[in-house]
C-alpha cells in the first residue's frame, strides 16, 4: 500500500470514528463516558499500530487536533454543562474516590460561577482537576487491585 493510499484509508477511518464520537456526544452534549470513548480508543490503537510509519504519525496529530476541535465545537456553552461534563468524566475516576472528587469539582463549579467565571473557564478547571485525579488515582487503584489478588510485598 502506497503512502497516499494508506493516508486515504487513515483519513476515512479517523473521520468516520470522529463522526461517530461527535454523534455520540450529541446525546448529552458532552459525553466522555467509556462507551463514547470506544471509537476514540479504537482509533488511537489503530494509530499506535501504524505509528511506525511517518504518515501514521501525521495522521495521529491531525486526527487528535480535529477531534479536539470537534469536542470544543460540541461543548454546550449553556450554564450547567460543565457540571454535566464533570459527572460524565467521573466514570474514569476509580469508584473509591469518584464521589469525593466529582462532588468537590461540582462545588468548585458552583463557587467559580458565583465568582462570575464563564463556562469555558469552569470547563478548563473541570478538565484540569479531572486529568490530575485520573493520573493520580487510577494507578493507585490498579496497584491496589493487583496487591489484593497477588498479596502485598513484605
Amino acid at each position, binding site marked *: 500500500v502506497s503512502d497516499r493510499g494508506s493516508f486515504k484509508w487513515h483519513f476515512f477511518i479517523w473521520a468516520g470514528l470522529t463522526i461517530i464520537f461527535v454523534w455520540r456526544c450529541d446525546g448529552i452534549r458532552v459525553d466522555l463516558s467509556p462507551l463514547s470513548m470506544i471509537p476514540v480508543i479504537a482509533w488511537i490503537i489503530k494509530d499506535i499500530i501504524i505509528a511506525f510509519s511517518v504518515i501514521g504519525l501525521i495522521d495521529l496529530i491531525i486526527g487528535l487536533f480535529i477531534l479536539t476541535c470537534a469536542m470544543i465545537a460540541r461543548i454546550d456553552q449553556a450554564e450547567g454543562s460543565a*457540571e454535566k461534563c464533570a*459527572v460524565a468524566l467521573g466514570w474514569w475516576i476509580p469508584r473509591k*474516590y469518584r*464521589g*469525593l*472528587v*466529582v*462532588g*468537590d*469539582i*461540582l*462545588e*468548585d463549579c*458552583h463557587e467559580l460561577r458565583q465568582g462570575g467565571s464563564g463556562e469555558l473557564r469552569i470547563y478548563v478547571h473541570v478538565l*484540569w*482537576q479531572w486529568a*490530575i*485525579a*485520573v*493520573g*493520580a*488515582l487510577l494507578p*493507585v487503584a490498579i496497584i491496589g487491585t493487583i496487591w489484593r489478588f497477588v498479596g502485598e510485598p513484605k
Partner: protein
Amino acid sequence: VSKKKMLNNREAVILSILVNGERAGRDIRNEYRTRTEHQIPLGSLYTTLTRMEASGFVTSKNGGTTPERRGYPRKFFSITGVGERALKTYQEFLANAFGGIKSV
C-alpha cells in the same frame, strides 16, 4: 515515630490544618492553598490522605452532602494521636536542623 513514618512537607501541612479540627477534603485543599500559596489538586490530595490514613496519621468518616454536590458525599478527615506525634517530631526535626542557622 520511626524513620519510615517521617512526614514529608505536604503531609505536615495537612496535619497542621487538621490540628484545628476535622475538615472535608475540599476544605483541606482550600486551606492548603491559603497557607502555602501552592495548589494541591484534588487527585493528589486524596492520594496523600489515603496514604496518611494507611499510616495511621489521620482517620476519616463519611459526611452528608450539599445541593451543590448533587448527592455526592463528603468525607471528613481528622488527626490521630499517631499523627500528632509525627507532627511534633517533624517540628522538632525542623527546629534542630535549622534552629542554629543565622538568617540568610
